[in-house]
């Protein structure tokens, strides 16, 4: 099953940014700003972005942490990671040859500069790995982020991912996840329900309604906050001593 899903995401990586840009545009860039601001990380900070996909959050976090920090984007799809590295100017084969995926089908207001970081981006790295079996030592990060992926993980894997996120955080470090709120429009609400059901089981709905009790099993001071548009929600927890 996992192998199948990796193949799916490897293929999906080719169109992913275009699809996301089509239906959210710069709203998703604002949501990433919100996520990184609330993560409370500064220059020199260390961030792990789980299920990084094509690296949008990792690239945004790198803007804040700078060359002296470390941002690691992790995904189990080689295709997604390849895209992410190309966007970061780190692709060894074709640094500039990759198509400008983010601006292809979107408005000029999309922050293309963010997507096309200057070459190399020191302090930013990508790893292919399994979020439930993280290849990092204990206490390696100040912040672990996970944007729009916790629902996909399914209830049986999620607990393991949260435990691993806690392990790789330093004491006092923060786990921050972002998701869409339940849409109010009936059609998008229906599609949202399909997404939750398709990726796991009916139990996914409980998690999506309120993630706080699930996070509280692993983290202290769990809070939930809505973005200014109320379309995204951010759930945060702190690793206790």
């Amino acid at each position, binding site marked *: 099953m996992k*192998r199948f899903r990796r193949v799916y995401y490897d293929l999906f990586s080719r169109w992913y940014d275009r699809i996301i840009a089509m239906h959210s545009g710069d709203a998703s860039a604002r949501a990433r700003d919100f996520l990184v601001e609330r993560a409370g990380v500064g220059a020199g900070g260390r961030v792990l972005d789980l299920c990084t996909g094509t690296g949008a959050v990792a690239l945004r976090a790198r803007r804040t942490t700078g060359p002296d920090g*470390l941002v*690691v984007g992790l995904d*189990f799809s*080689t295709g997604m*990671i*390849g895209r992410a*590295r190309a966007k970061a100017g*780190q*692709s*060894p*084969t074709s640094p500039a040859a990759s198509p400008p995926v983010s601006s292809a089908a979107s408005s000029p207001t999309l922050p293309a500069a963010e997507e096309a970081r200057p070459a190399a981006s*020191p*302090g*930013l*790295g*990508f*790893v*292919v*790995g*399994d979020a439930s*079996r*993280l*290849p*990092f*030592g*204990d206490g*390696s990060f100040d912040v672990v982020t996970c944007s729009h992926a916790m629902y996909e993980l399914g209830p049986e894997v999620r607990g393991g991912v949260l435990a691993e996120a806690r392990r790789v955080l330093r004491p006092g470090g923060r786990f921050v996840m972002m998701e869409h709120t339940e849409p109010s429009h009936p059609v998008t609400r229906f599609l949202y329900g399909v997404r939750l059901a398709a990726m796991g089981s009916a139990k996914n709905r409980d998690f999506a309604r309120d993630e706080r009790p699930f996070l509280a099993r692993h983290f202290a001071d769990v809070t939930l906050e809505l973005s200014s548009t109320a379309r995204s929600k951010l759930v945060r927890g702190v690793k206790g001593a």
Partner: protein
Amino acid sequence: MDKKLLEILVCPVCKGPLTYRRAELELVCFGCRLAYPIRDEIPVMLEEEARTLGPDEKRD
């Protein structure tokens, strides 16, 4: 690969230390006897993608 990233990487199975074999482009866990490949400069830290060490492969 970023030096800071290399410093925090461990074996995803046992969380033990890894040995970076630059020539082979591998990260080796001698505890699990697994060699994780580095492909296009990306560490692939999945057990199912790792190579099992041969009986003659000793710690460097």
